[in-house]
């Protein structure tokens, strides 16, 4: 297990609990100001959820806008619409059996639908490839696949790998004797000055031994090997793999008709900011402008509604 997995999961469940508990406090607290401050906990925990999903920009946006803006607005509204001479601001609610039952049913149904009824297709389809014959090795049919760092989210060829966490995986389709080690190799695309073209350079992780891994025996399914890449610098990558041991080595894996190996390329990018910026200035430009106009209108409208009525 990679370092700090347990720690991260601990934090994850901690914040999940905080989110749900805060939501419950918002829903059930007798004191409206307490509800407001419980909402603070919810917002922070949801930001933590985004952080776990590696959506760093959205974390910042969530805290900046929700906590710094909306929550302050809400608290101000509470304080402006209650005679807060004492700290006990009651928050009357009329819970009914019907609504409670309805909410419980809703929750159950949502869980059924999300978790159990619908199996989310997340793994990337492995790409069939062949390792050509080399000295001491017959040609060999293998499956290559790549996933995001968490090992669950598949990343098809050409996908973007957030923060450069990737797991490369090779598996043979049939049990296989005598193969003990698999050597991976990764190349990074280095564009030249004109950005028009570039060259592929070998990318060396901090410890080169990392690229040579033992092959695990999966019994009937065959044999497989994987490496975890961490924090690759930003850029375009492609990778390949071959089996080798003292008995000899195979050629680099070839991707079917796509010829020479090292075809499965992916892009490592640090954080969402660049991608979001491209999207904002690209396909979402119109939506962006419309939303800005709407914000302006909301600003003016709010200022108009909330102004002090002039009594004549």
């Amino acid at each position, binding site marked *: 297990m990679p370092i700090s*997995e*347990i720690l*991260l999961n601990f934090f*994850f469940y901690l914040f999940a609990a905080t*989110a*749900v508990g805060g*939501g419950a406090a*918002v*829903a059930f607290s007798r004191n409206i100001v307490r509800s*407001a401050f419980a*909402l603070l906990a*919810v*917002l922070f925990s*949801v930001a933590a*959820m*985004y952080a776990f999903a*590696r*959506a760093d920009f*959205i974390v910042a946006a969530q805290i900046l*806008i*929700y906590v710094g803006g*909306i929550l302050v*607005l*809400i608290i101000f*509204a*509470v304080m*402006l*619409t209650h005679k807060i001479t004492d700290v006990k601001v009651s*928050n009357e*609610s*009329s819970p009914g059996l019907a609504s*409670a039952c*309805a*909410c419980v049913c*809703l*929750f159950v149904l*949502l*869980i059924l639908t*999300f*978790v159990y009824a619908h199996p*989310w297709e*997340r793994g990337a389809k492995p790409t069939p490839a062949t390792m050509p014959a080399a000295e001491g090795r017959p040609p060999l049919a293998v499956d290559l696949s790549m996933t995001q760092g968490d*090992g*669950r*989210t*598949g*990343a*098809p060829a050409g*996908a973007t790998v957030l923060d450069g966490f990737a797991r490369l995986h090779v598996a043979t389709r049939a049990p296989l004797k005598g193969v003990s080690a698999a050597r991976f190799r990764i190349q990074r695309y280095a564009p030249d000055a004109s950005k028009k073209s570039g060259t592929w350079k070998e990318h060396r992780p901090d410890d080169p031994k990392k690229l040579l891994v033992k092959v695990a025996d999966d019994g009937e399914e065959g044999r497989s090997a994987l490496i975890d890449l961490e924090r690759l610098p930003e850029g375009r990558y492609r990778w390949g793999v071959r089996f080798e041991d003292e008995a000899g080595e195979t050629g680099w894996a070839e991707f079917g008709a796509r010829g020479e190996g090292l075809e499965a390329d992916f892009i490592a990018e640090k954080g969402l900011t660049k991608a*979001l910026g491209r*999207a904002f200035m690209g396909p979402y430009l119109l939506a962006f402008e419309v939303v800005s106009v*709407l*914000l302006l*209108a*909301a600003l003016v*409208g*709010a200022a108009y*509604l*909330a102004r002090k*009525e002039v009594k004549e």
Partner: protein
Amino acid sequence: MTDYLFSRHPLENFLVISAALFVLGVYTIITRRNAVSILMGVELVLNAANVNFVAFSQYMPGAGIHGSMFSIFVILLAAAEAAVALAIVIGIYQNFGRVDVDQADLMKE
């Protein structure tokens, strides 16, 4: 089980949390009588939706950036909505002296 717990947090976790938040928000909306509390419930619901957006956008292969974009738009719209709604709440307060949505039913008859 331990493998499930101690592996990297899977998509379902996010979905369960967002479902819980959503339901709590709905409950807040339909039981509270204070307009500001109802607004808080709305914020809960929006956050639940956002969690789903981000989770799917980050965890589905080939989903791309779109979910995250939507979550940002949701946040922006939530800001606008909060501003206007709270202005309305203050308007209600100025007219009715309190912000109880059951009292503000002049449109009824």
